[in-house]
């Protein structure tokens, strides 16, 4: 085309629970410009072709984690995924393993419940008085968990995880990585509490190390590594609990 754009076909999942029994698809022809991301094409559809399309997005710079969708079957952050990676036809679906609210928008409640379940905050046996000064942490201590704190809650790892697909109660990669991040924080004293949660319903031992979570993670958090480390810590903590205070309630 004269303006340097090239037409691609987008097959987009549509679902309105008030009108549809099951999801359907709609096809759009989009004049795609060079360097466009998948999100640019979705915004074009929404602005120029079909204002009824619903999709979630915000920052456009891979920070907010809102625009995760399945693109040609793979979970992707659409603001970070270049259309140059795909051929003439691009299939866009809502993230797998989540209930759909409408079109490409998924329900977050279950995911947020799992996040809350791992107590993602610093737990202290006794609150530190202000006059005692700040909790100091060395760069080495920070480095132990820094990678696991880079999660943007985009949920791609849940869409890719075969265990989440089969066992919806499984805590899941992001929540376990987050819990492990706090367990590894030198300022935290809540590891035993979280390890009990890790061994309880939705147990981290359900993870079969498919490693798909780390493959799709756009921030290179490597949740699979966090889960494996967390498993080992949870086992040590379980064994130690027999010595220190007898078998603990699971």
């Amino acid at each position, binding site marked *: 085309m004269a303006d340097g754009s090239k037409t691609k076909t987008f097959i987009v999942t549509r679902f309105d629970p008030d009108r549809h029994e099951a999801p359907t698809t709609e096809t759009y022809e989009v004049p795609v410009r060079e360097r466009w991301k998948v999100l640019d094409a979705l915004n074009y559809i929404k602005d120029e072709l079909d204002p009824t399309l619903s999709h979630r997005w915000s920052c456009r710079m891979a920070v907010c984690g809102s625009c995760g969708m399945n693109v040609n079957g793979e979970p992707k952050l659409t603001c970070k995924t270049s259309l140059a990676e795909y051929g003439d036809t691009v299939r866009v679906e809502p993230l797998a393993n989540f209930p759909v609210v409408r079109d490409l928008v998924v329900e977050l409640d279950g995911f947020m419940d799992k996040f809350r379940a791992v107590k993602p905050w610093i737990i202290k046996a006794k609150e530190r008085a202000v006059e005692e000064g700040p909790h100091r942490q060395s760069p080495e201590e920070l480095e132990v968990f820094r990678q696991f704190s880079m999660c943007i809650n985009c949920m791609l790892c849940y869409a890719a995880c*075969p*265990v989440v697909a*089969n*066992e919806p109660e499984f805590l899941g990669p992001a929540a376990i990585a987050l819990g492990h991040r706090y367990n590894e924080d030198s300022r935290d004293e809540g590891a035993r509490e979280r390890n009990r949660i890790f*061994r*309880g*319903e939705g*147990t981290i*031992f359900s993870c*079969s190390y498919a490693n798909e979570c780390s493959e799709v993670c756009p921030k290179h958090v490597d949740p699979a590594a966090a889960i494996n480390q967390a*498993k080992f810590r*949870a*086992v040590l903590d*379980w*064994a130690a609990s027999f010595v220190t205070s007898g078998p603990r309630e*699971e």
Partner: protein
Amino acid sequence: MRKLLLQLEPVIWLLFGQGILIGTLLLTGWGLVLGVLLPLGMVPEEALSYDRALRVGGSLLGRLVLLGLAALPLWKEAHHLRSLSIDFGGAERDVWIAPLLYAIAALGSLLALVAVFRIPFPG
């Protein structure tokens, strides 16, 4: 049963993890020596003579190694088969598949323990 399984998960995972280590590294080497190198005559015959094998296998360390070689890969396979069963849509049947597989691994481990104890002490 589900609650019991949940409580036993740390032990099962530990046995599974050690089974991966043993099954991948030691058992492969063992199979290579006994199944390939020995029949091809690439290992000196006296290396695994009865007396020598009895001296190694009959020692305390030898018995422990043999027990590990026989029992731990059973837990690895049981856990892998359980995961496979779940992956093929068997999350609901896991409540009986998992105990069955682990019971087989436990029975095999028990038999391995008996076998290891029955190795005669080297005279």
